[in-house]
């Protein structure tokens, strides 16, 4: 197994909720509440979860676009959260981000050439302006665009083309890790496939590592080596992609997989749905955070916070059902979904 490139431990990003005239902090939105993640060189890790579970905040905290309160983000062995911003800059070159909305992530007043060359300029890559333009053309070809697009504005491009520009911009600084924050979610399915293929090719050619943040399970299955499932700011299950899809251990993962649309008429209806709405991240439920929606809740779930237990089939799950010391209990008949 290759060396760990990114190791996130105990990451906690809380957003203060202020109220009143004195703007006093009355509580926190616990967007990310103790997340551990490891991404190895050349590997793809998918971070999945419902909207609002904090997966985007994880990505932004890793890049220090948000300021986490606690935990560590080690990139190549160096803790980024402890670095002063001057030192942080050199690490920013080594990890990049591709955003969801390709229109919002490109400045409408800049041409493709300047958009892609922005990072090169700030890190002094590629020599003078002329050399940089040549490199931009190379990058455009790498993402299957051509030199004709060099002087266009974002609004003159299609959605897929814009996302390619976003990818080219990230690649321009020769990163080792690319965080794809819902990078294909805003695109048509056919374009999605193209972009995913492109990302796969680039990974093989450049030995990139991806942290793929998405809510789309079909994308995950296609692309990821490892999956981490997030719920209310915590990772509830992680393991090799195959294992997660074939034998999900955590009830939440089971629910997610059951809720995913399928073309197989045999499993059109969900057997084990996830019930109700997500509780507020400002006041997560005591005990297991998932117990309010879990079809398999029992007493212990309401009282204790489950740690991540190792699963017999590989990976980990934050559920007492995986606790070896938990006495077996009578099977609960699944509720009708």
């Amino acid at each position: 197994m290759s060396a760990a490139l990114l190791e996130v431990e105990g990451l906690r990003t809380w957003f203060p909720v202020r109220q009143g005239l004195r703007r006093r902090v009355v509580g926190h939105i616990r967007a990310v509440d103790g997340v551990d993640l490891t991404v190895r060189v050349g590997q793809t890790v998918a971070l999945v979860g419902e909207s609002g579970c904090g997966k985007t905040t994880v990505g932004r905290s890793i890049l220090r676009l948000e300021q986490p309160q606690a935990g560590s983000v080690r990139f190549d062995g160096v803790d980024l959260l402890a670095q002063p911003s001057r030192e942080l800059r050199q690490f920013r070159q080594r990890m990049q981000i591709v955003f969801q909305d390709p229109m919002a992530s490109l400045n409408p007043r800049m041409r493709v050439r300047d958009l892609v060359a922005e990072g090169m300029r700030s890190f002094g890559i590629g020599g003078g302006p002329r050399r940089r333009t040549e490199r931009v053309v190379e990058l455009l070809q790498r993402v299957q665009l051509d030199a004709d697009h060099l002087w266009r504005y974002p609004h003159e491009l299609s959605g897929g083309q814009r996302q390619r520009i976003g990818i080219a911009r990230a690649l321009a600084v020769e990163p080792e890790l690319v965080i794809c924050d819902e990078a294909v979610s805003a695109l048509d399915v056919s374009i999605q496939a193209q972009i995913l293929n492109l990302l796969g090719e680039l990974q093989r050619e450049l030995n990139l590592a991806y942290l793929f943040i998405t809510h789309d399970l079909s994308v995950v299955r296609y692309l990821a080596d490892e999956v981490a499932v997030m719920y209310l700011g915590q990772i509830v299950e992680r393991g090799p992609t195959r294992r997660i899809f074939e034998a999900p251990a955590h009830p939440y993962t089971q629910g997610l997989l059951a809720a995913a649309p399928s073309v197989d008429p045999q499993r059109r209806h969900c057997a084990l749905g996830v019930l109700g709405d997500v509780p507020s991240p400002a006041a997560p439920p005591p005990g297991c955070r998932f117990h309010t929606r879990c079809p398999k809740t029992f007493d212990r779930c309401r009282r204790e916070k489950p740690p991540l237990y190792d699963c017999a089939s590989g990976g980990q799950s934050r559920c007492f059902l995986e606790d070896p010391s938990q006495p077996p209990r009578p099977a609960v008949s699944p509720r009708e979904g």
Partner: protein
Amino acid sequence: MESHILANLLVLALLFVGAPLAFLLLRRNRMWSEALGELWRRRRFSLLVIALYVAVALLDSFSWVGGAGAGEDSLSAHEARSVIDRAFADTPRESSYSAPLARGSFYGDEPLRAPGGHWFGTDILGRDVLHRTLKGVRVALLIGGFTSAITIPLALLLGVTAGYFGRRLDDIVFFVMSTLASIPSLLLLIALVIVLGRGTWQVCVALGITSWVGLCRVARGETLKLRELDYVQAALALGTSHLRILFRHILPNLMHLVIVTFVLLFSSLVLSETILAYLGIGVDGSWGQMIDQARNELSRDPIIWWNITAAGAAMFGLLLAVNYVGDALRDILDPRTLRERA
């Protein structure tokens, strides 16, 4: 006193360096050249009217000493007179009021020095009203332009930095803005003019201090929005410096607001000066002063109407044209319509 030479140099620099440079810059940027083309299609007449006003102001700013018409009295021989002044060399001062195109004076019907030569009549001091109206153009543009040159950079600097960096700075700027906005602006204007003294630049500074809040608020709000957009976040992740983000990503995306605000601000500034003149603290030679004088003239019998009519019409023409252009610009630069045309 060589101030007229400085003014001449400024006019020449504006004409032969500033204007071509601005033109080239606008041509290079596709969005702006498209917007200008669209503006020309929609508001050709208004633009021509504004150009006419600007031309008059420029002609009035270019002056030299001596030449034809000099030495009429001992004073004007050493005074720098502009192109506009020279154009009125054959309409000398009368003793007092005369009606438009009159051959004799208004009171007593004594023969004028230039019978039928004063198209808009003369004022109480016998000065040609058309001449004064045309000289008012320069004052109006100076007030609008110079004040905007103070207001807009100030408002942008404070608004954008407050919105971008937030925290303490934002609190301070917002406090100053709210405080200023809570003082009746006319009272503040009067107080400032009294403190600074009368004169063109003093009035401009006073107007500038009272009028930056609006744009500042808009710029701050827009910056707050832009700061969170993905492309600014991406720029941060790409290691772009804050200064560069401000100049490459924030300011260009604020420019449409700045242009629209400038145009609307301009007309409100010219109007504000009229109010100041009415209160007796305006700029010398402005339309406001002419209108102020008309307070007495309108109560005379027979009424003396040409002074206020000329000043009012000149101001009306300028402000209407500017507002028409501003209105069209707002439509053209509206991001929603931009996207439609894109």
